[in-house]
């Protein structure tokens, strides 16, 4: 087997699923992770002061999921047939389940967000302040009582949708890993570790996303000094969670690479691709150094967790690292050749990349507008 082999004629197949789908996987895991972290943190703290952060963790993932579905549609050969998957359904295909998983996630996030915002919207609308006509339209009937009374009245519904949305978020992360692992011809994906990779990446990006966008909310929105002081406690708590989530992510990636080492030549080729091959820069510089080492160091010490600037840097670095982690896994996994001796080439799709950038920019703009328009902050003190 050690003879010299020269390839004279072969076919390169290229990378079939490109950057747009990789971005879809990243945003999907980010949205699910953000929702899980925000809700689990609420379960941990159980204080109403935490509610503004929970609103960020429910409404922003809802917006993300609504828009990133466009990434999938744009990548189809026949975008007009996108909904064929919903009714002409092949139930042995994990990809087909995604239609319902995404749809149920969007619905449950929408209802959860609605019940979270409802008391503040009703009370503000009654007072005729701010965007009262919009709130009146969204809230429907103008109920009597304070925000606390209204929240108590809708408590069971809010908790129901919270439970449904968290369950769907977990299902979503499992779905992502399960979907990739079902490609049995792909050495890099055909592994049970995929599920844990997406869960760990989802949790770390979720914590980072909450830190980042809660801090942006506090700058753009109009929280009181007390609200900011309260939220600082939770944000430094989230920073501590980020530290552990990154550690778990590093361990899961370690297990994944170790497993690749022992699955034959294909697995070793994948390790080579990441360590010293065409994706080594993205792996060592962006995924490991920026995405794992930097945020871990910054959130390791108490001073780093308390400082808003360092916390912000750690959050951005963790999100960037996770993004390149998924790109390396998804695109790198397809770069392993199936019948030839060369890395498969990634097609440059400038139109699709531009489309992805525009949709991402629209999502960001909606986030920022929502900070001005929706009642994220608690208003009990104003009512008193």
């Amino acid at each position, binding site marked *: 087997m050690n003879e010299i082999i020269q390839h004279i004629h072969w076919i390169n197949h290229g990378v079939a699923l490109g950057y747009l789908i990789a971005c879809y996987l990243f945003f999907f895991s980010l949205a699910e992770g953000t929702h899980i972290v925000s809700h689990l943190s609420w379960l941990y703290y159980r204080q109403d002061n935490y509610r503004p952060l929970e609103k960020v963790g429910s409404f922003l993932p809802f917006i993300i999921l609504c828009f990133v579905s466009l990434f999938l549609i744009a990548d189809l050969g026949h975008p007009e047939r996108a909904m064929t998957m919903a009714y002409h359904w092949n*139930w042995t295909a994990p*990809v087909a389940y995604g239609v319902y998983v995404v749809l149920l996630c969007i619905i449950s996030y929408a209802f959860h967000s609605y019940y979270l915002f409802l008391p503040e919207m009703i009370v503000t609308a009654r007072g005729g302040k701010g965007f009262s006509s919009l709130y009146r339209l969204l809230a429907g009937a103008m109920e009597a009582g304070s925000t606390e009374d209204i929240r108590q009245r809708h408590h069971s519904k809010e908790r129901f949708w919270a439970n449904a949305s968290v369950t769907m978020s977990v299902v979503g992360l499992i779905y992502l890993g399960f979907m990739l692992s079902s490609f049995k011809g792909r050495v890099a994906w055909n592994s049970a570790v995929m599920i844990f990779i997406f869960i760990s990446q989802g949790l770390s990006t979720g914590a980072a996303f909450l830190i980042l966008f809660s801090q942006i909310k506090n700058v753009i929105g109009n929280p009181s000094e007390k609200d900011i002081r309260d939220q600082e406690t939770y944000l430094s708590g989230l920073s501590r969670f980020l530290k552990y989530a990154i550690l778990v992510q590093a361990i899961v990636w370690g297990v994944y690479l170790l497993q690749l080492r022992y699955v034959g030549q294909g697995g070793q080729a994948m390790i080579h691709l990441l360590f010293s091959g065409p994706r080594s820069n993205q792996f060592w510089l962006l995924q490991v150094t920026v995405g794992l080492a930097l945020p871990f160091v910054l959130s390791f010490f108490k001073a780093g967790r308390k400082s808003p600037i360092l916390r912000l840097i750690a959050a951005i670095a963790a999100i960037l690292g996770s993004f390149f982690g998924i790109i390396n896994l998804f695109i790198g996994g397809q770069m392993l050749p199936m019948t030839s001796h060369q890395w498969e080439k990634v097609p440059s799709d400038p139109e699709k990349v531009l489309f992805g950038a525009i949709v991402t920019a629209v999502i960001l703009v909606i986030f920022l507008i929502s900070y001005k328009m929706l009642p994220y902050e608690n208003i009990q003190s104003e009512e008193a």
Partner: protein
Amino acid sequence: MAHPEIQVSRRQFLGKVGISAAALGAASILIQADRTAGAATPGMKKFAMVIDTNRCICCHGCTIACLSENNVPDGYYRSWVKKISKGRFPNTSFHFLPRLCNHCEDAPCLNLCPTGATYRTKDDGVVHVNRDICVGCHVCIDACPYGARFFNPMTHTADKCDFCYHRITQGMEPACVTACTGRARIFGDLNDPKSEIVKYLNIHSTQTIRADLDTHPKVHYVMADEAILGADYSALI
């Protein structure tokens, strides 16, 4: 502020876990049953191909015949020939491997197609793409471990070899078989004991590509060199 806790008894919890496990088990059984139903029915035809690599002279006649017969766009192939040289001068040898869709009995592309556009005709076990349902999601292209599929830029759907179905249903042979100058390709019905392919298989030992994946390919190779059968990862590491 205290919130009312939702109490779940141990009995309720175990009940829910039991129901979930039962649903999961039932789903797994149904998926397996569905896969079995998708395979060719016994007693019907089971089209397959044997390629004797000793007879292949790498003339690319099959490639050209396929392109012409199926109107395949430029730069894409339903059938092609991989060619390598092995060894160091003067001890060198050339090896050729004609390639096409393997029409696997447990086809990953068929299992992973989200709309069911990839299907198998139950009369003969040939794997097809229904262009009217295919959404062009590229999943099957990624799922095929043999690189046998491509995205057709004319139809915007997945495309691949279908054993020239329009010909074989009329009693003819696929275009690549007819055009093969060395008569390296033998096509026929595996369920017909009198067919040439069955007689050939009875007296030759054969190989399939990536047998480790358990996809049961229906394209068999005779005397293919091990070095050409799979991807050459050693060239990458």
